[in-house]
């Protein structure tokens, strides 16, 4: 009985947190269907529901092309990050070599440099590689991830070394050990990292804006910025909302799909 009131309070906190998350999202979803001449100050629910705002937003920029680019960028980056982070994490977690700790701390240090401090050096590198205004230029600086390496290294260290040793005795190669023993056991850490990384790169605006100039090379967030940067006027809330929905719906769907994976990932980890 003693834990019941505590649980009630806890649930209440969770509900409140959930509400603070869902209310702005619902407001955006509803406002996206409001006509441009229907002031948002007049009511919360639109007087007339319309798809016009979506049409205007969609027509304002080549959103179709932007979708394809954003998918290439986000999926491309995480695909490469899986390979580089898993291999680096294994090396830092299990291999013995001189300077391992120092190298690892240097790696961590890189996490602490703000991205904005690297914009100009990265830009100059891309120019020297003659990659300016390409999708590769958007992706290249993120192919290695200190955060992914760190996450996976911690997770790999928690996996009993006996697994690896018995696999070795059975004649498994290093690749097989990494991809069939370590990776499945670090599934939840990997998924958590991939979700964070994916949504970061799906939402990234500044670096793509700096490094590309052609519409054919730009992501969704640049299209969204057409509506959100009004400093010489008030905001057109309906258009901002419609454009926001265009950008976030795929990520929301993906998140809801992966949420299950996420939880089963947790359930399957641990020593059998």
């Amino acid at each position: 009985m003693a834990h019941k009131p505590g649980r009630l309070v806890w649930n209440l906190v969770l509900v409140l947190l959930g509400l603070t998350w869902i209310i702005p999202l619902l407001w955006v979803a509803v406002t996206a269907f409001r006509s441009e001449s229907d002031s948002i100050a007049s009511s919360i629910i639109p007087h007339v529901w319309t798809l016009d705002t979506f049409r205007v937003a969609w027509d304002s920029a080549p959103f179709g092309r932007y979708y394809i680019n954003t998918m290439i960028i986000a999926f491309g980056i995480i695909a490469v990050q899986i390979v580089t982070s898993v291999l680096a994490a294994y090396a830092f977690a299990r291999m013995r070599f001189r300077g391992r700790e120092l190298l690892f701390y240097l790696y961590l240090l890189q996490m602490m440099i703000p991205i904005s401090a690297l914009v100009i050096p990265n830009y100059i590198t891309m120019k020297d590689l003659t990659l300016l205004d390409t999708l590769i230029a958007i992706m290249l600086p993120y192919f290695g991830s200190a955060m992914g390496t760190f996450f996976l290294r911690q997770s790999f260290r928690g996996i009993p070394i006996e697994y690896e040793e018995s696999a070795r005795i059975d004649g498994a190669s290093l690749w097989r050990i990494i991809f069939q023993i370590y990776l499945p056991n670090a599934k939840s850490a990997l998924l958590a990292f991939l979700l964070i990384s994916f949504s970061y790169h799906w939402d990234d605006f500044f670096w793509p804006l700096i490094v590309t100039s052609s519409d054919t090379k730009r992501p969704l967030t640049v299209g969204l910025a057409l509506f959100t940067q009004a400093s010489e006027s008030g905001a057109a809330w309906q258009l901002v909302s419609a454009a926001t929905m265009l950008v976030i719906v795929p990520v929301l769907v993906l998140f809801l799909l992966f949420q299950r994976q996420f939880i089963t990932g947790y359930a399957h980890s641990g020593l059998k």
Partner: protein
Amino acid sequence: MDRKRSGGTMSRRTIAKLAAGAATAALGMPAVIRAQGSAVKLSFFYPVSVAGPLAKIMQGMVDDFNKANPDIQVNASFTGSYQDTTTKVQTAVNGKNPPDVAVLLATDLQTMLDLKAIVPVSDFTPGPEFDPKDFQPAFFQDTQIDGKTWNVPFQRSTPILYYNKDALKAAGGDPDKPPQTWEELVATSKKTMGASSAKWGVEFPTSQFAYWQFQALVIESGSDLNGEDHAHFTFDTPEATEALTWLVGLSKTEKVMPDSVIDWSAAPTDFSGGTTAFLYHSTGSLRSILSQAKFEVGTAFLPKNKQFGTPTGGGSMYLFKDRPQANQEAAWTFIRWMTAPAQATRWSLATGYVPVRISSTKSKEWLDSLKETPQANTAIEQLQYAKPELTGHQSGQIQKIMDDNIQAAVSGQKQPADALKNAQQQADAILKQFR
């Protein structure tokens, strides 16, 4: 009311027409590109800073330029906000890869000079359509340094006073005689709060760009925030203190304004929804306010203290260094075309910016549009009292310092005099290196 309504539809129809023009032009593009293999290719960066389909309108104009000038091919690139555009230009200049032309804030001039990134447009042959005397003097004055013209005004705005004519009528006032002075504004605000459905008398947003509209109050009090040159600012003056004290008093003592930092983006929505009877805001908001308000909208000069006054705002076109001479010549042709009277009229009608050319304001298209939206004329008449927007070395940082201190005063964390003293100290510390 009918007049206002039709005004809204008119402008939307204009946009539709322009957008259709842009689409047609876009379809014609591939043929044009093929025909001009040896054309000079120019890169052009521009921000979008007013809510609306500005990128499409811009692309339509650029396409028309390319069609009219087969030996030049301008590639227009949307580059986010003004701040994003400035950062992109700075990065590109640092990478020795500047654009040919960019629309940047008029107040970025000193920053671009410090970066050694730009060339004066007055070094080039003016050509018939470039007549400095035909630009609004208020917009042209801040293009001048050391007797040279460094950029060309393109999309310029100013703050104006919006008012709810119905609320003014309900309060027993003449809807065509808005308040002219600070005292009248406060008195009328109080009356409208009692007599109409407006919950508040006035809103003066300070969440962003607080320094901009605050500068108007300082000019109206007989001083300015800009000092003798770009390394000096006059923040800590009796006039500025009087202005900030009045602004804070609107909520704290007169109680005609919400007692908080009012959001810049949301304030026009409050006004068009009838929550406030008066609004200090940019000319750029006129179009959306007219389309959303269910009452008759009036515009007026910002009320005076000792005199009328307003800062200018908005963006100008800059021409860049370290580009081949053929590009610079072509870029200058492009800038002249974009700021010629015909385009100035077209851009203003489609976007709501104040026309930069005097002859635009006398054109048939503009005068016809005024029949539908006479409210657009206020800003042009107010230009005679305009001074250049707060600018100098590190202007972005200086503007931020001013914003932070105005917000501290409005939210009650600092006394107005202390806030201005702090702003002065912080600005002086940054500007020491430039004196």
